[in-house]
């Protein structure tokens, strides 16, 4: 390279003339704007911002300028190159955005296509509704107790104050289990439990009061299967034994249960009834879940669920008969308790408008699947 020529006039270098620099810049920007694809922009970039682009070539000329001209020319070229760089970047961003948007459009699918590759499973609604009821009580501090389905008569009847030959004991149509060889008929003393109440007695023998338990389970009676009966069905039993429990406590507990299961505006009603294992005993009704009582005296809106009575019979309850406490080794002078039991099938029927008991029994997947995992 030659020594700086102090008399060198920058204006004389054609490529470094201000209007030339401006032209190069503008051509570059125009080329970027004209590029309609990232590929075209790449070509324009090579042409106008690459190493052999006019501005780059002009930039090389600066070195040949005299020192006093270098700064000015350098500044002019630098600004132009910066403008070109910004223009390129802006266009790059624009085109990338366009491309991205186009790709998203191209990748669009029909999201309404059905997808049943693996069919859904489901738990039986009787199972989930039992768990749901149990959970209401578990959240109150109750524990879930269980007992055997093949049960000795003593637990199923005697301990619950069903004395031999009591009419109530005949009311129960019981499956008897065959005894050992050489015995006949019902001598085994073993039955398929007719209710979940024997778990009460087992729990009282197993635990020290206070006892607060809920017992869901399968029970058996010799009814033929039809639209409203099944020989194998499910119950939930509730038992609380503590010092000073009253019927008002029973009522409050039932009120809480129906509110938790059926909504905050639910109400219960107790009607006197008779059960050997409770005294006093009551039948528990709740406001009809379907018509909320509005069908009563309203012939235009009859309710099939409650027969326009406004109430649904839910189950039997009462204060644990002190004789039951005695048989289970609990001092009735010190402790009192209440118990409640009801049928799960019936609750499922009115809560979910099931019309035929057989649907719950036959295991048809079309019935069970819609209930899913929870209820």
């Amino acid at each position: 390279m030659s020594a700086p020529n102090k008399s060198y006039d920058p204006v004389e270098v054609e490529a470094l003339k201000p209007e030339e620099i401006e032209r190069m810049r503008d051509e570059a920007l125009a080329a970027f704007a004209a590029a309609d694809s990232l590929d075209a922009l790449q070509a324009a970039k090579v042409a106008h911002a690459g190493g052999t682009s006019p501005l780059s070539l002009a930039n090389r000329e600066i070195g040949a300028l005299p020192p006093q001209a270098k700064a000015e020319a350098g500044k002019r070229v630098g600004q132009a190159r910066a403008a070109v760089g910004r223009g390129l970047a802006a266009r790059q961003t624009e085109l990338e955005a366009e491309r991205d948007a186009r790709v998203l459009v191209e990748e669009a699918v029909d999201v309404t296509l059905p997808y049943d590759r693996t069919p859904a499973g489901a738990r039986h609604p009787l199972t989930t509704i039992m768990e749901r009821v149990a959970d209401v009580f578990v959240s109150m501090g109750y524990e879930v107790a269980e007992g055997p389905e093949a049960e000795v008569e003593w637990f199923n009847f005697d301990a619950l104050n069903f004395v031999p030959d009591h009419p109530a004991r005949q009311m129960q149509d019981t499956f008897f289990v065959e005894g050992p060889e050489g015995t006949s008929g019902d001598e085994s003393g073993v039955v398929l439990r007719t209710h979940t109440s024997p778990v009460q007695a087992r729990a009282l023998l197993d635990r020290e009061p206070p006892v607060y338990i809920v017992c869901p389970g399968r029970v058996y009676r010799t009814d033929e299967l039809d639209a409203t009966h099944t020989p194998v069905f499910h119950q939930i039993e509730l038992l609380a034994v503590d010092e000073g429990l009253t019927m008002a406590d029973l009522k409050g507990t039932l009120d809480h249960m129906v509110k938790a299961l059926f909504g905050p505006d639910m109400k219960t009603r107790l009607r006197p009834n008779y059960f050997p294992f409770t005294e006093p005993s009551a039948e528990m009704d709740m406001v009809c879940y379907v018509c909320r009582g509005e069908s009563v005296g309203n012939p235009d809106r009859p309710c099939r669920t409650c027969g326009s009575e406004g109430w649904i019979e839910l189950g039997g309850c009462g204060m644990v008969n002190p004789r039951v406490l005695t048989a289970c080794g609990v001092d009735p002078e010190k402790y009192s308790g209440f118990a409640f039991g009801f049928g799960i099938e019936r609750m499922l029927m009115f809560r979910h408008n099931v019309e035929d008991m057989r649907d719950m029994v036959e295991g048809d997947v079309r019935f069970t699947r819609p209930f899913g995992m929870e209820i």
Partner: protein
Amino acid sequence: MRVPLSWLREYVDLPAAATGRDVQEKLVGVGLEVETVEQLGADLKGPLVVGQVLTIEELTEFKKPIRFCTVDVGQANGTDEPQEIVCGARNFAVGDKVVVVLPGAVLPGGFAISARKTYGKKSHGMICSGDELGMGDDGSGGIIVLPPEHEVGTDAIELLELVDEVLDIAVTPDRGYCLSMRGVARETATAYGLPLRDPALIDVPGPNAHGYQVEVSDPVGCDRFTARTVTGLNPEAHSPIWLKRRLQKAGMRPISLAVDITNYVMLELGQPLHAYDRSRLEGAIGVRRAEQGEKITTLEGAKRVLDAADLVITDERGPIGLAGVMGGAHTEIADAEPDPETGEVKGTTDVVIEAAHFDQLSIARTARRHKLSSEASKRFERGVDPEATSAAAQRTVDLLVLLAGGTAEAGVTEVVAPTAPRTITIPADHPDKVAGVAYGRETVVRRLQQVGCDVYGQDALTVTVPSWRPDLTDPNDLAEEVIRLEGYENLPSTLPSAPEGMGLTQRQRTHRRVGIALAGAGYVEALNYPFIGEHVFDELLLDAEDSNRRVVKLVNPLSDEEPALRTTILPGLLAALRRNDSRGSHDLALFETGTVFHPREEQRTAVRLPVDRRPTEEELAGLDEALPYQWRNVAVVLTGAREQAGWWGKGRPADWADAVEAARVVARETGVELTVRKGQYGPWHPGRCAELVVVTEGPERSEKVAGYAGELHPRVIKALGLPARTCAMELELDALVTDAVLQAPRISTFPVATQDVALVVDADVPAVEVEAALREGAGELLESLRLFDVFTGEQLGEGKKSLAYALRFRAADRTLTVDEASAARDAAAALAGERTGAVVRGA
């Protein structure tokens, strides 16, 4: 118990405007289950009058004989002319009084009456039968013929009491006294706060020595026996309309005057009665237990062989009645029948009335033993007022005298076993404590008195319960009486706080989680009956000695085809699969968790323990030893597509691997390690059966075969009519429940080193054994191992397979070098080679 409102009003002065619905509500409030209120004659409209048949013209040209009658209905038709009526019934004659419905009337069921042409004549109304008037069967078999004393033109709606309301009450076993008008009236009076006219409070002559001789040799079975005699009954006397109507409304059929009267008094007072034809009695009446094998023919004609525990009524010749259940045919009241020669009506003229009280249990057992439930036994089983026998006998005598023209003999027999009235002592605030309400002593005493109790004392009340309430035995019984009369609806609602609970047990949580996991894996839960027939074990190809063949059997199964309880869930679950398949669902995955029942090696019977104390631990253990073993199994069955074909590509049929995977799903939820081995068991395809083993590690390592999974045996599929290739898994769920607490893995943040290895082994080497050897051989650096390919082909040679594994190595404290990872892989392959003959492929 059916209670006509009109009859009830005889004992309680109910408000005139009170409807059956009103009374129902009040009675429900005090604890009587009034199921329905029947509206009799609600849509009935007159004119309906008494008429007298003037002429009968027999019309014979029709298929059945028809009568064209003229009937005098007085002024009822507005003309005073006889009414012309066509009638198809034949049980009446000229001069008879009948019930005539005139045009413009409406009969029950909305049946409008108008003059109409029939059988060639114009009929201006109808001569009515009991059925047409909604009265029920009166035994006449035709139209109603009224007693002659009723005047022509009288309104028959009123005469026949056709408009009424009847409460139908389901009486619970403890409230036997409500199987009577007297009992229901007492509850009604209390519910309304009105006085009761007790129909049992009538003058009764004292016993004397002149009555019919009665010898009670079992005073426990029969603690009271009243006998009265009425003579000179007119056999032609009929039950008056009011008597028949009350019986009909109460649901009983009128039979004959004497029988109707005993039934009427039973309905009124709740005391079952029996009337013997005195001319057919021989000697003294006795009450004793039957001799084993003694025979009797009861009223309805059944010959019965008696048990030594049956209580019987006898005369000199032997049993004449099953006490408290049903009388014998031999001493029955004779129906009035005209003598075919003289025309004189003959029938029973002298009767002996029995009003007795029998032991509840004894009657219940006899009724059950002979499968004979009568109105009498129903009442005795639930408890009858022993103090009402003489009143009931007196009432019967009075009605026989009044209605049948009889004469009461002066003799009054009463055999009474002395009993003390029952008293219960309770603290005056006992009902308050039971209810959680401060009723106060005054209320408690008043309510108990309303029930019929005598009450003495201040803080401690001595309560003598009324004779008609044998159910009141315990303090809580008295509390219930107070609380129900004060109204259950008035009980406050308080929520007791249970002590802090422990939540669900591990077993309960496991059962839930397994259900959730299987449903999540696409299985639908089915809850099947546990009843099976033993033939299914043959269909399932179980060995003769298979323990599942030992079953618990029912004495009284619903179906003789299925008398046993299941030892395996599969039969029921496979039936559900078949049912779904036949209904058009062919891609199925079902599961069930449920109890199976296995008899103990040594069976014993359960002793009936006393209930007046806690049983001893030995006694309780004895009870449980009488029970079969019961535990919970889980099972799945699959058929059809496990994955559907669709726009995404091909589907996949359910196969053995899905069944085995279901077992792993279950095991994952329980936290128990389940080892899968090649197995062979009855229902499963011998080449496609996995044995599921629970291995318990530790100082005493144990193994338990907990179940099987795989494809079912083709013969099982054929025998049970299942879709081809049906797969199944069954596992003893309770064997998988564990309290073990998972120990958290240590997570290394150093990089992973991956190595693949393909091993060639004999085709019959189980992959699980190769994998176990690899794991052991790879040592501590192995983080995970996965079989990613199984390959068979010619290049491997006959009877060989290639298993390709991806091994991931990682150290806790450093980055592994390639050499370290390779060395570990080689060690793994070497041990696999040693154990299973595996050769590294391509080595």
